[in-house]
């Protein structure tokens, strides 16, 4: 690593590097196949293998099929409780979103570094989480306006608002509605980035401590290493929670669009 320099750059792991196709361009924009694209492909292949293994439709499900069915059942149950019977048609979208974020998060935590392939967390970039959030927000807008026409704006005025308060409440609710895609994308991006920076900083303590003599190993390296194991477990939990929160908030926003209040 960067042991010889004595300073470890925790931001280096987020660097996007072109792997091949550096000269590819569409309308003047470079569209090289980057490490980010590679890990998105890895994520998609992992989801594909996971789903194919469980879609055998056996009458008595094996372990793999139970795993897949509990995932789909989890999302369809979430849609049923949050949106109601009309939520069923959004299940495929929310399921794809949940699986992509979950597997993308977990792929970034994989210890492939020990065989020389450095993992890249696709969800640690605002471009990717932002696009996911914009897609969710667009679906909310399209569904809301298609279903309720201009009546959709009544979403911004809660029931029983006094007449003189309507302009103020309308502005506040409109603002809190428009901020949703930002908060949705930012939450996932920052949670993943923060966790990975923390782990790299602790890894820096471990490596620099190892180079600094026996006393430092006892005081710094071993406690940092133990803490790092705990933080890694916490990060795996955060991976799952953030994917769940993204899917849950998407379903809540869809509920607003489908059922108004």
């Amino acid at each position: 690593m960067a042991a010889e320099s004595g300073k470890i750059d925790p931001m280096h792991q987020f660097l996007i590097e072109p792997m091949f196709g550096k000269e590819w361009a569409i309308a003047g924009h470079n569209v090289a196949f980057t490490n980010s694209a590679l890990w998105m492909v890895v994520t998609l292949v992992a989801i594909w293998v996971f789903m194919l293994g469980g879609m055998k439709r056996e009458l008595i499900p094996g372990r793999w099929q139970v795993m897949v069915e509990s995932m789909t059942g989890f999302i369809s149950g979430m849609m049923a409780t949050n949106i109601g019977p009309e939520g069923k048609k959004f299940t495929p979208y929310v399921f794809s979103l949940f699986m992509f974020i979950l597997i993308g998060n977990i792929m970034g935590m994989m210890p492939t570094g020990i065989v020389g392939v450095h993992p890249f967390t696709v969800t640690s970039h605002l471009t990717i989480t932002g696009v996911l959030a914009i897609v969710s927000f667009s679906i909310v807008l399209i569904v809301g306006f298609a279903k309720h026409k201009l009546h959709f704006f009544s979403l911004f005025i809660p029931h029983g608002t006094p007449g003189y308060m309507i302009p103020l409440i309308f502005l506040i609710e409109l603002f809190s509605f428009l901020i949703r895609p930002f908060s949705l994308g930012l939450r996932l991006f920052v949670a993943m980035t923060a966790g990975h920076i923390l782990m790299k900083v602790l890894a820096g303590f471990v490596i620099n401590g190892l180079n600094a003599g026996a006393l430092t190993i006892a005081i710094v390296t071993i406690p940092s290493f133990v803490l790092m194991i705990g933080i890694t477990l916490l990060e795996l939990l955060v991976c799952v929670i953030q994917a769940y929160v993204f899917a849950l908030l998407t379903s809540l926003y869809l509920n607003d669009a489908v059922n108004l209040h």
Partner: protein
Amino acid sequence: MDAASAKLIGAGLAAIGVGIAALGVGNVFGSFLESALRNPAAADGQQGRLFIGFAAAELLGLLAFVVAMILLFVA
């Protein structure tokens, strides 16, 4: 005070916000656990709301973290 040290102090001050968000997240889960122990039968139905509260409390801490990162690496 030169600009570089002011940036570092600002990033350190932003870390206070992250710590305060930790209080908020702890409060969300603590209150949930407290009431879940009083009425365990109703607890499972409220898990969605638990995570909405968690997400809202966590977001504000993450915003403080973003401020610190912008000060350190962008500004």
